[in-house]
């Protein structure tokens, strides 16, 4: 990471999360990253909005409207893929100009800068590799398949691209016997992990923002390490036990399952960089 960036007293940071109406772990990383960034004093304000929690994306007119010193708002989607949410839902619900990176708000005269999602950041490849090594320390990588799991959806063709790109980048490093992108809802399906791989060891890293419904409850069932969805991570008092039993012996292999990549504290740095990176060209243009 570079040195701490300079303070931006006229700029607010808005982190957009998915959130959940049933699972407290879904929005937790966005809230934790927001609190961590607030303590650094980089932005005048740091807030979150959610698709399924409060404040809602639709609450945007009520954010940052009491401080006339705030002239711009950086909107950073805490989402992995550039897909249905970043292209359709977030711009629609936030009332952002779909054809421009900057939206000028009538009334507050603020400029809202729509930044790339965190999943686009170049540090993702190293973070995925780091997670894979942490969950399976000491395994022989040449005898190991690394599976990156994304959501995948029929709603947007781009949803699967982020995991596919990371798998390609990880393959280029020639460390693992095989690196594959897999998905919950479109082929290649993570449920088929045993037939997709032929190595003695298989490491699975969820390319997800939180240990919420998908990575903590759905994917373990698809992998066969749970027979039915368990309680949420925070509801299970022995928290993290889904990840504490590595490796599991299934189909004659050693299966290692990691927690979601977005729970990594380093994501706070990535959020800041996505915001300041999008701001830099805008500042240069107006100078």
């Amino acid at each position, binding site marked *: 990471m570079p040195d701490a960036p300079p303070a931006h007293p006229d700029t607010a940071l808005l982190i957009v999360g998915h959130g959940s109406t049933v699972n407290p772990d879904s929005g937790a990383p966005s809230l934790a990253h927001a609190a961590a960034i607030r303590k650094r004093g980089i932005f005048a304000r740091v807030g979150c909005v959610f698709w399924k929690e*409060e404040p809602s994306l639709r609450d945007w007119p*009520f954010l940052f409207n009491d401080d006339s010193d705030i002239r711009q708002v950086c909107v950073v989607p805490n989402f992995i893929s550039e897909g249905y949410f970043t292209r359709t839902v977030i711009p629609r619900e936030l009332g952002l100009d779909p054809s421009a990176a900057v939206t000028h708000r009538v009334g507050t005269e603020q400029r809202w800068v729509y930044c790339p999602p965190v999943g686009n950041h170049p540090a993702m490849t190293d973070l995925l590799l780091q997670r894979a090594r942490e969950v399976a320390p000491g395994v022989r990588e040449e005898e190991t398949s690394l599976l990156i799991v994304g959501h995948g959806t029929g709603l947007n063709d781009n949803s699967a691209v982020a995991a596919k790109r990371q798998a390609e980048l990880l393959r280029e490093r020639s460390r693992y016997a095989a690196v594959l992108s897999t998905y919950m809802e479109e082929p290649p399906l993570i449920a088929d992990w045993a037939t997709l791989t032929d190595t003695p060891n298989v490491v699975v890293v969820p390319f997800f923002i939180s240990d919420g419904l998908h990575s903590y409850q759905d994917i373990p069932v698809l992998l066969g390490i749970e027979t039915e969805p368990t309680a949420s991570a925070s509801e299970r008092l022995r928290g993290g036990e889904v990840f504490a039993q590595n490796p599991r012996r299934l189909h004659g292999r050693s299966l290692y399952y990691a927690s979601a990549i977005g729970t990594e504290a380093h994501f706070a740095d990535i959020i800041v960089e996505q915001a300041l990176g999008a701001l830099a060209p805008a500042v240069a243009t107006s100078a």
Partner: protein
Amino acid sequence: MKETFLIGQIIALASADGGCELRHRDDAGRPARELEPHADPEDAAALALYDDAGNYRPLKTAPNLRHGWRLALDGQEGLRLALELFYPARLGAWRVYQRGRLDTTPLRETLGRQTGMYRVTAKLTDEQADALVGRFCRSDGGCLRAIFWRRDRAGTVPSTRLPPEKFDPACDQTTGKTLAEDDVPLICQEACNLLVAEVRAVVKGERPAGE
């Protein structure tokens, strides 16, 4: 300590040192030693996350804020952040309302805008809407916001099953009494995502609309 204002289930008390202390309003008269002390406004996020029984609170304006804590704050910025975490965007909504610039969105428009798995919510019937809003949004056990949105552009009341006070920002949704001048009502300008998710369950037959 002197009461300064109420917002939802929270009371703000003026402390002797010029600062402010937030508590659950039911705890206003309890000795400080009986309450779990907090002094970081960021603690509000954790205090707002679960109810007294330890259940997740997805709707922050539901009348199930946990008891037994006090949060000491020494400046306006800390107070603003804490209230933002307890009742997200509600101070801002009240501010916009006071300026006469609050835009509201009818339920039919909110449902008609949905895509993906929520597109089906547009099929909610008027009868289902009346029963569902009457059940889901009621102040007694549902949500403490005062509703400003209508069912449709024609101005149909969201639910005939809710009392007139539910649509009155001057009414304390907790007690039914009139709020004081400095109190902050919780404004509802548009059906929330929890209601939209509940509409989906009703339309798909997973849950009855009413009681």
